[in-house]
């Protein structure tokens, strides 16, 4: 199967951590153009191979994964437009490096969900661990629950929306993009951020270095209203806006090649 031929190079695993068999089991049930995978008896690699085979090779645009069982690294590296639904909780590094999918997770996710996401929409109907949306570059990541520390660390674009409380160092080293935090936020919000915008509805324990209050504009309100409507989060509450004070870091001081890394 073309979608997985490239993986046949993985033939050896001294530590027993890798599923070396790259056979696509073809266990998905396809009906009316939609596929359902029961993941209860499958390894992480088998699940991901099945998903890729469906969306890359078979032209399926809607995949549901049942019983994901908190397995790690599910749904990673999907680089096409499709819909995915996970009926259950996922482990760490779920949905990393995706570009285009629209995903719903009916459960919780572990740390580093959606790290390096390029485009798409991910809605988590539950809580998420630390490092949610690490280095995200685009798309919408919506957590309808609480999150741990360092949400959006190194964020380079996109929008992260948290309906519950967020932990410490949220927006740490943020470089672009937007965060909409509808609950309370822990200490060191926006620590060492270069750029980007953080909106907070609840209480902020403390601000990090060079994170300063900003002034809400009509554009900010239009953006927040639009996103909250998309994700059934009601009407915008009164928000505080935070931006970079530009005293610690400044794009103008960067080498051109460094500047490109954060565009």
């Amino acid at each position: 199967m073309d979608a997985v031929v490239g993986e046949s190079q993985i033939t050896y695993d001294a530590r027993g951590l890798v599923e070396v068999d790259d056979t696509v089991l073809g266990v998905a049930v396809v009906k009316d153009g939609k596929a359902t995978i029961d993941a209860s008896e499958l390894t992480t690699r088998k699940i991901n191979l099945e998903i890729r085979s469906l969306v890359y090779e078979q032209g399926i645009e809607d995949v549901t994964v049942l019983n994901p069982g908190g397995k790690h690294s599910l749904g990673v590296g999907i680089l096409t437009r499709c819909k995915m639904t996970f009926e259950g909780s996922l482990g760490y590094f779920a949905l990393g490096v995706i570009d285009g999918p629209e995903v719903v997770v009916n459960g919780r996710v572990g740390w580093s969900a959606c790290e390096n996401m390029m485009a798409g929409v991910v809605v988590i109907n539950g809580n998420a661990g630390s490092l949610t949306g690490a280095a995200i570059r685009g798309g919408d990541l919506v957590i309808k629950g609480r999150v741990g520390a360092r949400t959006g660390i190194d964020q380079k674009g996109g929008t992260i929306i948290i309906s519950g409380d967020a932990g410490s160092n949220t927006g740490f080293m943020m470089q672009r993009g937007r965060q909409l935090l509808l609950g309370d936020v822990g200490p060191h919000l926006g620590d060492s951020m270069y750029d980007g915008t953080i909106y907070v509805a609840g209480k902020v324990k403390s601000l990090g270095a060079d994170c300063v209050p900003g002034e809400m504009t009509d554009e900010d309100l239009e953006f927040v209203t639009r996103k909250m409507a998309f994700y059934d989060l009601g009407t915008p509450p009164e928000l505080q806006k935070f931006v970079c004070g530009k005293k610690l870091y400044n794009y103008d001081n960067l080498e051109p090649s460094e500047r490109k890394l954060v565009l």
Partner: protein
Amino acid sequence: MSNDHSVSNPRKDPEKIISIDSEYLTGKRFAYQEEISEIDGIDLQESTPGGDINWLEDITMLEEDGTPAVFDRYSNSFLKIYYDIPAGREDEIARKVLIKHLQSGNSYGTVLKERYAKFAQPELGPWVKGSKTVGDNYVPPVLEGWEAPEGH
């Protein structure tokens, strides 16, 4: 990489490059960089996931070497735009030019996929439905005289 791309790109490696642009990487300038009508058919909302323009929210009109330009994150380079930009449409045009560039398969990052992608993936990613699969025949280079350790 060849040192002789075109007259408009006279740089010689290993000269330090501080302004990487698409034309330098591909050796080409595309019609949609010179003619605004080339982007007429682009529907931004249709071209992106979700209910709005999604990741394009972060794409704005920038400037490189004094010329309006949009940044292509898939090749880490600027795509310059040479026509007059109507006032108030800067970001819209930047986004449409970038989407046209990606859908046409002209981004240098896309060009590299055919030869270097290590895992199977759609060549045109999420921008064009049903594009061919690349990366399914990658063979890692092997040093002459190298032997795999026992067990491989």
